[in-house]
């Protein structure tokens, strides 16, 4: 039965008064141009074998709001999704986020998962800002809604070899042979192909005596390390993830082999969990990776925010590029003035952020949606901290070479 509402004179006056009080605040909001927060779906491998790195990326999301606010950028509503380190799940979660109202996607650390998400984003016409994923194909498909502020595998490799040559010049020495170990997932395979393509262009002083591909979910890498040791190479060249980086280090110690150097061209070796879990045994490896420029103003803000939220953690590639993906989203939303996907994509395409965190001149995208101006850094693990060795403009330490023997550290 419908309820009858009695409108008395007293109620009418009270309602009018309430409306009168509320009206100025609505006007105020309109006057300052405030608008609903942009709904950003953040896809990361929060569980599964890449969970540690996914959780680390999440820290970059957690510390972003206060910094974005201080930069005068609009609010974002973050919608979290877990890819479970699985390509199919990544695709499903991207579709669900869009169905749930996400107006822009960010993700997803892993190239395979990101490729799947990019297909969904393009199909649905929702912009995707890739935080971390290096497989070059992703931005070679002619996509209109996919943008990547992370170097491709060939860019990482080109810079890595440039940085290596710079280091060899500084120390006046170089390995004559390396054994190349890499994960056999999308990223590892792309990097391995890239190394073979890019290496001849640089006058690298060493040769690869053996190439060992392995499963990133492997529980035991004793065979792989035994094989690498058996090659009698001077140094180890690696493209790995976190868990396998720790497994390899343990096996190096147990099998009593300290190579002259561990040169990593991927994640794992500089990550906080690696440093904390292995303690003194984590010292020495040099990673050639996209990294922060510690001399940039925004890098200092990000470091301070991370130190406040997560005391004792080092700023990592995961934090830097995940934060920058959110920075790109907020900046585009501000300039676009709309959450319309096409308007947002157009705004992202014309991004020009020079006050950023990563090494390089800033954030701009080429016609393919790729930031092709990013630069790598060479960083070395030292006593639980990360020292930047190259490029010269961002360096804050000299290389320690060769690596100290593991035998003296246990």
């Amino acid at each position, binding site marked *: 039965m419908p309820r009858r509402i009695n409108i008395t004179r007293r109620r009418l006056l009270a309602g009018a008064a309430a409306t009168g009080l509320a009206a100025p605040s609505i006007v105020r909001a309109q006057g300052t141009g405030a608008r609903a927060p942009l709904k950003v779906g953040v896809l990361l491998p*929060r*569980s*599964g*074998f890449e*969970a*540690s790195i*996914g*959780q680390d990326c999440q820290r970059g999301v957690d510390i972003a709001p206060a910094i974005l606010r201080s930069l005068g950028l609009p609010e974002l509503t973050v919608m979290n999704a877990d890819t479970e380190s699985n390509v199919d799940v990544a695709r499903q979660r991207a579709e669900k986020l869009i169905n749930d109202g996400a107006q822009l996607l960010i993700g997803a650390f892993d190239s395979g998962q990101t490729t799947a998400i990019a297909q969904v984003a393009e199909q649905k016409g929702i912009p995707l800002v890739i935080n971390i994923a290096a497989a070059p194909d992703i931005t070679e498909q002619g996509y209109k809604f996919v943008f990547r502020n992370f170097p491709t595998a060939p860019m990482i490799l080109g810079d890595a070899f440039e940085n290596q040559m710079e280091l060899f010049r500084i120390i006046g020495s170089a390995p004559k042979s390396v054994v190349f170990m890499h994960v*056999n997932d999308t990223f590892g395979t792309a990097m391995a192909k890239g190394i073979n393509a890019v290496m001849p262009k640089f006058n690298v002083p060493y040769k690869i005596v053996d190439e*060992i*591909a*392995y*499963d990133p*979910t*492997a*529980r*035991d*890498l*004793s*065979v*792989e390390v*035994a*094989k690498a*040791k*058996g090659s009698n190479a001077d140094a180890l060249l690696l493209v790995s993830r*976190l*868990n396998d980086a*720790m*497994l390899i280090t*343990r096996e190096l*110690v*147990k*099998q*009593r082999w300290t190579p002259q150097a561990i040169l990593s061209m991927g994640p794992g070796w500089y990550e906080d*969990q690696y440093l904390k*879990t292995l303690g003194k*045994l984590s010292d020495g490896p040099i990673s050639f990776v996209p990294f922060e420029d510690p001399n940039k103003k925004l890098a200092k803000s990000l470091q301070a925010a991370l130190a406040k939220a997560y005391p004792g953690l080092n700023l990592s590639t995961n934090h830097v590029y995940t934060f920058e993906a959110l920075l790109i989203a907020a900046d585009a939303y501000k300039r676009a003035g709309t959450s319309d996907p096409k308007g947002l994509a157009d705004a992202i395409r014309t991004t020009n952020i020079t006050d950023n965190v990563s090494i390089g001149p800033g954030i701009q995208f080429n016609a393919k949606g790729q930031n092709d101006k990013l630069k790598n850094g060479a960083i070395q693990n030292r006593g639980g901290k990360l020292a930047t060795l190259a490029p010269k403009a961002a360096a804050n330490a000299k290389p320690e070479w060769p690596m100290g023997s593991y035998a003296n550290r*246990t």
Partner: protein
Amino acid sequence: MPIDVYLNVAVAGILTGLVYGLMALGLSVIFGVVRVVNFAHGEMMSIAMYLTVLLFSGLHLDPLVMLVPIAAVLFVFGYALQAGLINPFISRPEHSQFLLLVALALIIVNALLILFGPDARTVQTSYAFDSFQWGALIVDATKLYAGAAAIIAAALLFAFFRFAPVGKAIRACADNYTGALVVGLDVKRLYALTFGIGAACVGAAGVMMTLIVDVTPMIGPAYTLLAFVIVITGGLGSMAGALLGGLLIGVTEALAGLLFTPSAKSMFAFAILVLVLLFRPQGILGKRSI
């Protein structure tokens, strides 16, 4: 490649295979008697691994010291599980049992994820990085301890089923269910004991495994699959077959990684499984069903 590399890899494969064998032994014991396939086997092992990590990080208790207590905890868990949850399903269709244990596996994985988060956890004992060297042979100390513990645990289990009255009664249940009922054996209690013993085996294997690998909540399903490969290869229901299967898979994975490519390690383990299923479906030491 120097010959000592092959030797080192083969020895490492044998030691890892022994621990695999101990883990699979539990699965084989449970199936051989209760005729229930434990799809939560690897997940139960991950519970033991987390207990080891917790006791080590909280009380600095060495995993080798915790081997028996944690196996006992898993025994109680397994006993309660069989008595309270699985026994009512014994006479139900196999798909009901299957779904029950898959559900249990999912619950364990997600409970561990909620409780401990996704990060890998490890046990850093004073001997975690030790190795023994005899000439060119370098043996990982933790794998050696784990392998030795696996042999001792398996020997105790064999002795229990061979000589202990309860062990003989359990074997009677496995051989002839109706006969066991006729002679007055409390079959349901013996089933619960068997499940408890299987869980204790996997608990002991889990403690040993924490010396070799890091533990994450997602580690369970991979070990469930591995245990199945091992017991099917060795012979479902055969304890000796489980140990032999473990050794075979451990050594095959190690040598395949060295001789071919490490990426293909699992492929060779599964190739052995396919060959066994083709030419000896009952497994290497399994009995042919009539």
